[in-house]
């Protein structure tokens, strides 16, 4: 269809739009000079790091910028109609009718105290003035259309009563009810697990085709863009620096920022031996600090010339469907780029950990949470308590100096496993041994010698540091506590650590609120390594960071690990990152490890069916890559009451490969099958059948 549609005028045409916010520092231009077209049945992706003005563009389209935001220039033309300068009442008629939005966090976006049915039907009754009954029927139809199970019932429920993926479907159904010409999706899958994300992305694709809707898709995830978008606009610091078809941009990024972004993201299958991540130096400037009359990216650009600092580059067309805001886009060739000095992590080839004694060894570890039942009996302490089997029968070992990656969907017990090892949770059963120390007792009962050998890097940069104390104090605290250095040498040691995480001395006295997310994370790493631990647990250390910062932090972790010879356990939900970073990988599902082995073995057949499903759900930042289409249906069962037998049998897409058709999966816990000594798979399907599987991803 696209060939014919391109002949039509675009549904949405944005030209040189600029949006400002009034602040106490005066008007700050959050977005400027943004131009793009969105056509019928086409998805226009807006990518960029946080703080680049992506969402502002989305809200600017419908002029819903809050009390202090306003469109200060340019034109936003919707189906031939200029939207800038329209009255709110006119815009209101468009919103929800011709232009709909889908938001990042569906739970937040749905009113918690109004039933889903009411929230859906009111879109129809307000815009269409049709009888409630008819609106209801239409709503149910639409819910069915987005593959909502039991849709008539869902209408009566409240948002919290359905799962996150279903909530997102409701939001999508709500957006589509009036058959809008334009759908704006603001990070619609960011809050979802990768398997759910895959299903929702499929759904979006289906709907786009069936409804001919033009979609503006905002995301920070290059993989998602590659999967769903036709056209891409890359935003940086409030400007659109590159626009083009998805193929063109991925194959041939022209703007240095786009190139930088691509180099930050590990490809699924790339390893730290085979590839290097190159972070973009510096960070996104705050709106008020953006250079004026110059290229906004110049301060971070490797190609920046004098001209870039003195003149603002126009959006120049390279190919018919591809333009970039760079003076030198013609000259720059991404493939001949050489990293600047100091950006390449200094990693000598490490001696493999094979054959070495395992540093840590877990055998049959179980950590259950007690769940207080809400019965009356429990008031007097006689209630029957049930257990959430957060970690169930986990056995693994990490060889010294190696990295174990742990992946799985949220709630699979990754974090609990880490907490158990570190001593914040006490296991119910099983053995855990670390260099001969017992790890089954809580941290409060552990010896200081043991405590200092186990440290942790946390996920959320905003909460990893105590806002009340300076950087120096917080890095110094473990040094003082473990008496690693004499107290008069603490300062020097802290500064040494700061240097180790690429921060200079001036950070010593800074308070956390004066740091950016990446810097906080670096301080968190410095703090974890201060006591020179043997084992560092990283609990999603980069998942809250922008890609360029993520690359920097990953590099840093690798370097420090290399320098200190530390063993690591790396927890993440991003399979590409885990693959990139780890030597060994454990895949967890519902508290159990379902596959364990060297990283390269996990990402190649034979797969445990869950691993296969995970891999095929990962969005790959390459529009040409072929990926198997395996989707998990239903939701992860409650860990309070996990399925009998194989925990995965309720959702397993490969049950037909089991000889008896899958009956055994419901009854018996699967055996560990050893492909190699190190690679084991937790499945009833015979290894021979598993080996017949094809690789999930094949590059074109």
């Amino acid at each position, binding site marked *: 269809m696209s060939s014919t549609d391109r002949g039509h005028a675009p549904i949405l045409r944005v030209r040189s739009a600029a949006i400002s916010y009034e602040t106490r520092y005066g008007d700050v231009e959050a977005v400027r000079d943004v131009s793009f077209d969105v056509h019928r049945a086409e998805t226009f992706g807006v990518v960029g790091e946080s703080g680049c003005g992506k969402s502002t563009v989305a809200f600017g389209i*419908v002029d*819903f910028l809050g009390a202090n935001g306003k469109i200060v220039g340019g034109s936003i033309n919707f189906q031939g109609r200029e939207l800038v300068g329209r009255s709110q009442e006119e815009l*209101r*008629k*468009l*919103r*929800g*009718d011709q232009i*709909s*939005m889908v*938001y990042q*966090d569906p739970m*937040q*976006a*749905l*009113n*918690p*105290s*109004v*039933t889903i049915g*009411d929230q859906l039907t*009111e*879109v129809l009754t*307000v*815009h269409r003035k049709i009888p409630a009954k008819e609106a209801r029927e239409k709503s149910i139809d639409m819910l069915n259309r987005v593959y909502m199970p039991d849709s008539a019932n869902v209408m009566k429920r*409240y948002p*919290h*009563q359905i799962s996150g993926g279903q909530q997102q479907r409701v*939001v999508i159904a*709500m957006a589509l009810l009036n058959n809008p010409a334009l759908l704006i999706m603001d990070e619609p899958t960011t809050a979802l697990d990768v398997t759910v994300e895959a299903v929702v992305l499929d759904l979006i694709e289906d709907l786009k085709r069936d409804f001919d809707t033009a979609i503006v898709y905002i995301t920070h995830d290059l993989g998602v863009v590659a999967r769903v978008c036709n056209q891409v606009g890359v935003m940086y610091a409030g400007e659109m620096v590159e626009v083009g078809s998805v193929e063109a941009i991925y194959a041939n990024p022209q703007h240095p920022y786009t190139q930088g972004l691509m180099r930050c993201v590990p490809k699924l299958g790339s390893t730290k031996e085979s590839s290097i991540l190159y972070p973009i130096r510096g960070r996104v400037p705050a709106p008020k600090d953006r250079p004026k009359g110059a290229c906004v990216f110049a301060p971070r650009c490797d190609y920046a010339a004098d001209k870039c600092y003195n003149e603002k580059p126009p959006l120049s067309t390279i190919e018919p469907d591809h333009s970039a805001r760079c003076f030198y886009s013609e000259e720059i060739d991404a493939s001949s780029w050489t990293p600047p000095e100091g950006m390449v992590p200094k990693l000598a080839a490490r001696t493999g950990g094979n054959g070495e004694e395992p540093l840590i060894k877990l055998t049959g570890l179980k950590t259950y949470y007690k769940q207080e039942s*809400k*019965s*009356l009996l429990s*008031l007097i302490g006689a209630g029957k308590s049930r257990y959430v089997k957060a970690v169930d029968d986990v056995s693994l070992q990490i060889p010294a100096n190696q990295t174990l990656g742990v992946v799985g969907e949220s709630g699979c017990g990754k974090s609990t496993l880490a907490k158990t090892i570190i001593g914040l949770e006490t296991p119910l059963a099983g053995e855990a041994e670390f260099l001969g120390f017992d790890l089954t007792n809580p941290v409060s009962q552990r010896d200081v010698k043991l405590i200092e050998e186990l440290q942790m890097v946390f996920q959320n940069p905003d909460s990893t540091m105590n806002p009340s104390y300076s950087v120096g104090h917080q890095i110094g605290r473990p040094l003082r506590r473990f008496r690693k250095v004499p107290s008069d040498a603490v300062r020097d040691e802290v500064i040494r650590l700061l240097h180790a995480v690429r921060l200079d001395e001036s950070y010593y006295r800074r308070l956390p609120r004066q740091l950016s997310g990446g810097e906080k994370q670096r301080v968190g790493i410095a703090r974890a390594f201060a006591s020179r631990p043997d084992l560092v647990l990283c609990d999603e250390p980069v998942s809250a960071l922008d890609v360029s910062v993520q690359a920097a932090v990953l590099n840093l972790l690798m370097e420090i690990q290399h320098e200190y010879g530390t063993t690591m356990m790396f927890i993440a939900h991003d399979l590409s990152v885990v693959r990139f970073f780890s030597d060994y990988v454990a895949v967890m599902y519902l508290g159990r490890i379902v596959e364990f082995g060297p990283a390269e073995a996990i990402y190649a057949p034979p797969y445990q069916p869950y691993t296969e499903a995970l891999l095929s759900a990962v969005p790959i930042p390459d529009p040409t890559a072929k990926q198997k289409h395996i989707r998990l249906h239903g939701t992860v069962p409650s860990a309070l009451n996990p399925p009998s037998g194989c925990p995965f049998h309720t959702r397993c897409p490969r049950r037909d490969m089991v000889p008896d058709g899958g009956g055994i999966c419901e009854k018996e816990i699967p055996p560990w099958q050893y492909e190699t000594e190190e690679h084991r798979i937790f499945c009833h399907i015979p290894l021979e059948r598993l080996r017949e599987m094809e690789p999930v991803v094949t590059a074109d």
Partner: protein
Amino acid sequence: MGKFIVRRLLLMLLTMLLVSISVFLITEAAPGNLARNVLGIHITPEQEASFLQQHGLDKPFYERYLYWLVGSDWRAERLVNMPIQQITTEDGFRDWWAVEEDGSRVRWDMQAEDLIVSELQPDGSVTRSIDNERWRVKDPSLEIPRLEEHRAEVVEDDQLAHADRQALLNELDQILTILSRKDQSPEEFTAGLSEPERALEAMVDQEALEKQTIFREMAEGVGRRNHLMQVLTAYEQLSGPLAAELRESDFQSMARQISRAAVALDGVDPTLEEGLAQAAEHLVGGDVGTARTTLDAQVERLDYLTGSLRDFLEALRTEQYGDAVAVLRRISDPAETPLDQAQLQVLPDLLEEIQDGLNGDVPAVSEPLFQTTDHLREGSTGEARQTLALAADELEQLSLVIARSQAAQGAGVARVFWGVDRQNRAVQWEKGTGDVVWRLVPGSGWMATTGGPAEYVPLQRGLLRGDPGLSLRTGRPVANLLFTRLRNSLVLAGLAFVIVMPIALVLGLIAGLNEGKPVDRVLSIGGMMFSVTPEFVTGIFLILIFAFWLGIVPGATVFGADAPWTRPEMLILPVATLTLVELGYVLRITRASMAEVMKEPYIRTAYLKGLPGWRVVLKHAVRNALMAPMTIIMLHVNWLLGGIVVVEVIFGYPGLGSYILDSALFRDVNALQGGAMILVAVAVSTQLLADVLYTFLNPRIRYN
């Protein structure tokens, strides 16, 4: 949901339990004396003890708390060994009765030695009859040593006539024999004891015993009234061991008494008169030592003049009748008492007072004394001596009878009976033990008797069964007044609530919608000012403005406990005060909540769905925005209750708050507890209501 409510109700009960225990504990620890608060500061320690006993306050803390909580009737039933029932009389009082096996309702009182049973007739009238069958031997193992001791006393008692003593000992021995037998039922005891006891009873002359009281009262009366006696008492005090504790005012009154005595002796004995006058002067001047020395010289003379009648009175007061007889004989003996002119001036008056005090109740003694006075006045000393001797003989005879009666009475086997008295208490009556019991008898004040009620369990149904007990201050059931007061308070609070809620919520929503705009500023700062100004200040301002300066409404509410609605205009200012304070509070909460909700992403969603502004506000914002205020307002009821106390005090409104304040200041624990329980119940149940409401408004909780 049901489970949740049950859970909350249980927690509420738990809270109330904790509160009631702490109120009990705190009032327990509080200094001050309830008996004095109720009866005035002049009561004697015995009376205080008796008061505490009668209200069950002598019991240990936990026992009282238990009775208060779950009632004492079940315990009393076990003690009385009969079912006990509360009935409501026609005039609205609640009476406790024991229920006999045949179903008739009875209760008792004790008159002298007799148990009187009152029986409630079906027509509501009450018949009374003697019911001594109920007495039970207290406890042989305790009685035997007591009786043996008594026997020894009887053997020693020189006041007893020989024959009486023999008869007494005879019966006593019989009783002891019977009591010493083991394994007898109470009935067998009663049967066996009846004969010797009857014999003992025959020995008791009740009339003679009553005369003891007459003697004693006369002795005290004369001692207090007669100036000469007072001088002697004063002298005793001055030289006694407690002299150091006497105070200035005591000296002053002594001086007055002494100088009055001096005046009375005018012309009788100038030396004595002068001496006394001097002593009085010394006392007034504060020179106690000299006063005493001066008195020292006078006392012997005074004693001589009064013919040692002081000893006579003292003997009668202490029931040493032998000594009294001896004094009379001494005066009648010329060798000992010359009856000179001075004595003749003093003695007749004194004797006349004694005889007046006896008031003809003991004619055998008072008649001869009367004659003696006459003779003395006439100067015929010989005849006077004869009549005095006669009085002495009569007194001696009487003393024998009294001694016998006392001994016989003391020899009776102590009997006890647990029953219900006419003041709604379970009482253990005792007789035959000889203990003195003080009782507050309605109409005749404090009375001391031997035998009578010994232990009380005030009957109450207990809070758990809806009975908060009797007010210690008024003796009326707490519940009666509590509910009137509660109703008055509810009228006040309810009116305020009805006015406040719609206005405050609407204003709050308006302010919240216009966050940061002038209308919001005015409303929220104005609201804050009203809500943080103490109620009494607001009240004062309102009184000043509307009652004092403008004079359009009454400034105080003075009406009976009953009807707030008899003069509704009186309610205007109290309600206005509460309204202002609450208005600001609710407004601010609603505003904050509304402003918060309007920033929620789902409101943005609603706008982006293209809903008109009014619909977004009404359908999506208000319900969520009301969640917080509703619950906080409910929690604020607690606070409102406090405000009501203050408002009630400002305007003199007869509500629950002022009732509790008075009870707390008075330490009327039952009333305080009753009020506290109502307040806590109101507070906690509104919290429960808040939770239920919150759950209703917030489906997220409802289905968890």
